[in-house]
């Protein structure tokens, strides 16, 4: 009788990297950087109606040291930009960034002297979520996209998202 028969059905073989990715994907700790209207929709996403915990990302942290997913929700202006940069730098690796909403992604319809035209001028972004503000479903979809990306990175296809 081989080992295969003894452990039949109760063992899965995989790579360590992929197990780690599986764990990370299902327990993202988001840090909402909520400055404006999109932050209110994130409240909706977290609360019981849409329930972000179905995707394992309900542990909202307000300290960048404890989070691995930065969700930028709202307009970033010139006064805010250095702070966002610093918050991003304070996060530990591995870290991902979602830019939620038109303002964070491109400045939205605020093309003026005060607003940064997209946070990718300051920090790298993994997933852009459209909408002004994005619906909770869209934010959840953004989180799913991050999860896909985590798995693909572990499988060695880093640029596929």
């Amino acid at each position, binding site marked *: 009788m081989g080992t295969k028969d003894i452990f039949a059905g109760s063992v899965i073989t995989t790579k360590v990297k992929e197990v780690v990715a599986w764990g990370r994907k299902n327990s993202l700790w988001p840090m909402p950087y909520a400055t404006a209207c999109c932050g209110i929709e994130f409240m909706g996403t977290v609360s*019981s109606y849409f329930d972000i915990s179905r995707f394992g990302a309900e542990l909202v942290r307000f300290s960048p040291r404890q989070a691995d997913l930065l969700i930028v929700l709202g307009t970033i202006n010139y006064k805010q930009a250095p*702070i966002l940069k610093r918050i991003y730098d304070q996060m530990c690796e591995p870290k991902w960034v979602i830019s939620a909403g038109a303002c964070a992604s491109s400045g939205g319809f605020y093309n003026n002297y005060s607003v940064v035209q997209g946070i990718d001028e300051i920090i790298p972004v993994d997933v852009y979520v459209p909408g002004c503000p994005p619906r909770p479903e869209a934010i959840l979809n953004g989180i799913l996209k991050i999860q896909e990306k985590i798995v693909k990175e572990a499988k060695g296809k880093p640029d596929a998202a």
Partner: protein
Amino acid sequence: MRSRSIENLPEESSTRRMVLNIGPSHPATHGALRFLVELDGETIAKADAEIGYLHRAFEKHTEHSTWSQVIPYTDRLNYCSSMANNVGYCRAVETLLGIEIPERAQRIRLIVCELSRIMDHLICIGAAAVDLGALSNFWYLFNAREQIYDFTEKLCGARLTTNYTRIGGLMRDVTPDFLDGIRQVLKKLDKALREAGRLLERNRIFMDRTQGIGIISKEEAINWGFTGPCLRASGVPLDLRRAEPYYHYDEFDFEIPIGTRGDTYDRLMVRFEEIRQSAKIVEQALKKIPDGPVMTDDRRVALPPKQQVYGSIEGLMNHFMLMMDGITVPKGEIYSATEAPNGELGFYIVSDGGHHPYRIRVRPPCFLMASAFGKMIEGGMIADAVAVLGSLNLIVGELDR
């Protein structure tokens, strides 16, 4: 805590003050507010608030938009209650134009204004309770808010940034299941209020954390320019719905809740009671919604009906001019104020007779509350600062514009 008496400590350690920076990225500042406090032990000796982390140049943008293009920007002033801002702006422009909107539109505007007041207060109370560590209220209250979201979505296709009013009326009439929808909302709201009310109103911890904290007297509140629930919590029964009624508010039977001490508890409880009163107004308003159009037939602002556009040259030209150039507002200036959820939302508009506003100044209600925040927390404990902040309901979109 000034009376700490640890004799063994060296002299300077008991007098050394520490400066603590809170925000702008802090869970209690809800977005973008920063305050610096100078601490003597745990007591705040001096405090100063700093804003501007969400300055989006609303007033500059209005000068570069047509009159109608300003409406979406007003959505994003107080984004917790966009409809009240839409109504405030459109009413100001209509007054400047001398347009009286149809009765039906007035009644629907009144209903959506009261619903947005409910929405705003729900989130204020919920978030203030979260800051004090009471999370479950937030779920209860936010569920009721989701019900109103469903309703606004049916009304105008958006949950938060509604863009529902137009200069001269409304974007479109309500859906046939409008009445039933709101009755459902009110029923669910009542349940949520009872649940959250039971958890908060006589909760020992909540009362200890909020009563006698952040007191502001009647005279001080007026001097600092407070309006809305924060002013009424200090005992001044000033409400523009009563003082300068618009949209037939004077025909409705409702009370203006006022507080006695002007502390954090009063500010939150005034909001609680205002939700109930708003629900009462909505119920009364539902009983008599007048029939008729929801858009004025004044051709300076309203598009002509399709038959006229396709059937007559006047109609076609009228449509073309409104589409290409936008509305023209005669030369003049106006200050028009409505009672928004946070207080007096004023629009001071100057027109040079062109297609763009010459200058629009928004009088944001929570701007002045924020300016008094530093003074309100001085002399209190550091942990109370967060409680006071929650009760002021600073919406940064409107604070910084």
